[in-house]
């Protein structure tokens, strides 16, 4: 065999693939993501700039102008207390969006932490948490939320508590599953071997890799929560009047469905559009954050 070539082992000039921040290069091609951003973004803008969009007050009653049809002055007419329906729709955006996002926050945090710890440490903690999850999972969401709000009395706090009590379990399950997988990765063991404490490992290595799934789930969870709030409002268990809220608007408007149908249907449409927007946003985020995952 001939001698080895004269060229000794050179220090490798690192050629590597060009940096592409995961799938960011195609995010603008992602239809769902764009649609979601447009709709949700639009809704947020409407909520924020409500006073600029309409000059009426959502709660002031004007008993001289009750039950008027759509006109130049009142685009969607007035309700039975003479309040401008369009204004209430716009201000309702604030209420429903805000409560939707907030209501998701507590279960997200609580569920992710519990699920994450259970998955990471295993053992009795895992068994305990999972049995709890099994128990809570047995109850249907809407039934539980309505029952709890009924018991606790209507109002914003009750809504948060009721929803949190029921929906934390999904986050726990999702995050636990992700953590179980992430835990097996060699880089987690390498971090432990490097001397990092459990806390640091969870924060630096496990956390970022598992939370994306929880965030994606949270998007669809907001939809569910908004539906719950609207339902509660419709049942008279939601936000106390006179605050403008889509659910209570549907409740108010249902008696006039034959004469002023827009009072009940337009808020319903708003709910549908919001849900669509959030779903698309969730879909788009899912593609973005975990492109290699099969749907």
């Amino acid at each position: 065999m001939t001698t080895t070539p004269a060229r000794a082992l050179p220090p490798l000039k690192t050629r590597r693939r060009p940096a592409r921040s995961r799938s960011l290069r195609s995010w603008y091609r992602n239809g769902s993501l764009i649609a979601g951003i447009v709709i949700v973004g639009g809704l947020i803008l409407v909520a924020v700039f409500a006073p600029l969009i309409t000059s009426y007050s959502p709660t002031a009653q004007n008993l001289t102008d009750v039950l008027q049809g759509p006109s130049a002055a009142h685009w969607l007419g007035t309700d039975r207390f003479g309040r401008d329906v369009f204004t209430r729709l716009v201000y309702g955006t604030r209420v429903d969006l805000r409560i939707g996002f907030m209501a998701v926050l507590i279960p997200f945090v609580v569920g992710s932490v519990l699920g994450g710890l259970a998955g990471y440490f295993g053992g009795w903690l895992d068994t305990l948490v999972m049995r709890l999850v099994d128990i809570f999972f047995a109850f249907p969401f809407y039934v539980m939320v309505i029952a709890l709000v009924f018991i606790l009395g209507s109002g914003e706090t009750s809504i948060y508590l009721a929803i949190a009590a029921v929906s934390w379990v999904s986050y726990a399950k999702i995050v636990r599953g992700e953590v179980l997988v992430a835990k097996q990765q060699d880089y987690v063991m390498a971090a432990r071997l490097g001397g990092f404490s459990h806390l640091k490992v969870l924060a630096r290595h496990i956390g970022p890799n598992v939370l994306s799934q929880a965030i994606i789930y949270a998007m669809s969870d907001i939809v569910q929560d908004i539906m719950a709030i609207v339902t509660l409002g419709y049942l008279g268990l939601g936000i106390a009047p006179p605050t403008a809220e889509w659910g209570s608007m549907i409740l108010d408007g249902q008696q006039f469905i034959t004469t002023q149908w827009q009072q009940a249907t337009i808020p319903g449409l708003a709910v549908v559009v919001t849900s669509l927007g959030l779903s698309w946003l969730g879909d788009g985020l899912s593609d973005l954050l975990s492109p290699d995952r099969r749907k």
Partner: protein
Amino acid sequence: MTDVTAQPEVTAQPVVLRVANISKEYRLGQGLFGRVGGAKKSLKALDGVDLELRRGEVLALVGESGSGKSTLAKILVGAVNQTGGEIQESGLAQGADRKQRSRHVQMVFQDPYSSLNPRINVGSMLAGLLRLHRLVPRGEVRAESIRLLNRVGLQEDVLHAYPSQFSGGQRQRLAIARALAVRPQVLVADEPVSALDVSIQATILELFRSLQDELGLSILFIAHNLAVVQHLSQRVAVMYLGRIVEVADTAEIFSNPRHPYTRALIDSIPRMSADSFTDPFEITGEPPSPVDLPSGCRFHPRCPIATERCRTEDPVLSLVGPGHTSACLLAEELPPYGGVPALKEEE
């Protein structure tokens, strides 16, 4: 051309890592009812392992599936706790905590695609370690990171890159740089080149060799490819079913193996320049599961020269030559090793 296999100073070097009578037992739960009655089955992944690693040497640990070599590696780095026996590391007090231990022994993993966190860039990864252990003052973290990268043959420009931008061989280099960051005395390399292309393997093997030469690093090199082992290590330990069955200097073990399993292992290597041949040391059958250990010598069901004594007596590692131990009752009686037949003539 340096002849790796002849380093006479090695045996005189101090021991940096010693394990004594290490065992690891996994209890196999049988559910609620299994625990109430009937014997509990257990899996003894390791059963009384003694090993010594000296300063500056490459000790190869060779074995097939079920041998326990990966379990031993995990125990050595502290990822798994042994159920019996003790580990002594020079320069490390008994009961040192995880952080102190991590400065002493580090690990390089087999799979280059799961050993680096895809969301953390190279610079961040190295800086994190350097800062955690306060190895250099804050201002020098970047410079030290670059030094580490250069040491493994990479340049400064990779600091901002993410693991997904690198090939398998480059990733292993990064993993080695990470392991070296804490300035360990011992490196446990768990089949570090098995997942790489043949032509890339050579570069990583040469890297290990240079680290041994330049840093005086002691390396425990776990492998199943004996040809790789022959090139890199000074001593070889062969494992079978949770025990070490033979230990010797590299040259010695390949020219004069004194355990039937070692012989069979050597004979199984597909050669590049010789024909396959039938050998008296053809072992038969499948490796048994560690759950159902054979009586007496663990190897006897597959051993071509097993005797009655082998079925009942469990051999211990004993000296069969200078620096050469073997756990075979018939070690003395083994015929001299014929080795590979002479190369056939070209057609």
